């Protein structure tokens, strides 16, 4: 189970990825998985650790994101 940080579009997701990388937090860019009744286009960063620190850094840089979710790899 990873943690996802969900972005509305590609550019903020990539900028956030670079900021997390500079802070030593590894993340992977993925398409945001759909949920029943809640489908929308977008990209997410899958973060395997330090989710709170990652979210805090993204907020600090005022990068727009729409929330976090648990990524299900089952």
């Amino acid at each position, binding site marked *: 189970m990873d943690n996802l940080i969900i972005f509305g579009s590609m550019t903020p997701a990539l900028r956030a990825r670079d900021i997390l990388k500079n802070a030593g937090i590894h993340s992977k860019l993925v398409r945001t998985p759909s949920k029943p009744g809640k489908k*929308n286009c977008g990209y997410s960063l899958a973060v395997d650790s330090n989710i709170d620190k990652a979210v805090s850094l993204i907020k600090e840089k005022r990068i727009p994101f729409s929330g976090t979710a648990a990524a299900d790899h089952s």
Partner: protein
Amino acid sequence: MIYFDNGATTFPKPPSVIRAMNQTMRLYGANPGRSGHKMSLKASELIYDCRVNTAKLFGAEKPENVIFTQNCTAALNTVIKGILKSGDHAVISSLEHNAVVRPLEFMKKQGISFSVADFSFDEEETINNFREAIRPNTRLVICTHASNVFGVRLPVERIGALCRIYEILFCVDAAQTAGAVPVSLSDSCIDFLCTAGHKGLYGPMGTGILIINTENTPQSLIQGGTGSLSLSREQPDILPDKYESGTPNLPGIAGLCEGVKFVASRDPERIMKAEIRLAQNLYERLNNIPGVELYAPKPEGTKSVAVISFNINGKDCEDVAMTLSERCNIAVRSGLHCAPLAHQSFKTDDKGTVRAVVSAFTTQAQVNYFADCIKRLA
């Protein structure tokens, strides 16, 4: 061909630009920002890389403030039509390209008015002309960084400072200066920087850039699919998506990215000095040829870019350009260069000019050959 038509587009391009475009078409030709497969993600990375490098070159606060457009004209139209509303007034310089003049003329029908501030070789006079043109309803000042015809630079730092005092948005057309003159948005009063990707940034044609350096963002002129927030019928408000509907020019942007890296590696300050040295040499040689008429002072680093306009007495500029092409294998541009206001300012609107523009690839030997050819024609 001995190429001096670099004001229209630079040639040649750095090999890295061509390689990047070729590689993109062969290996990464998927639609960026739309899908989740590896090729699409790689395509998105290429575009983001160009945003990052462009933001760095121009001192933009964030990569998402870099908007890719079709060309400089599209970037200028986005600012002019996206900012001005009925009742608003704009101020432009007397050296503007039709990319600025025509959208404003078009918008007169929608209740927009504009005034022209005359350029003067006396900087104080130029600033005063801008100050006097400002009205209570002036919302936007648009100013070329350097004339595409005569190479003279406008004091954009001081015009920007004037705009700050009057709380007016300031847009700079850097089509002739981006890459050839250092520009930093981080310590300037420029709100919108518009430029071509295919001139001093050495990218391919079909690429342009708008950098937004203010919270006052223009309305989008084109709405559509952005690969983001697809459930919403409203155009996304986030940058750069707000202005980048539809599939982007991936091969072009990949090439532009390498052009931007090329300029950064050579340093715009050094490019400017080298180009100005060659332009000064060309100017001096032309100035010593009887019958050659020059219209601006000898190029200077802080006051000009490497653009020289001239005529040969008694000869039509179109004939001179054609003869240079046919007999000397030299490429120049002739005519009014899409900037009739500039020609009116320099009293050349009845005859146009021959324009020679130096690039980072121009050599002293080419300058010598060019001057020798003009000497034979004069």
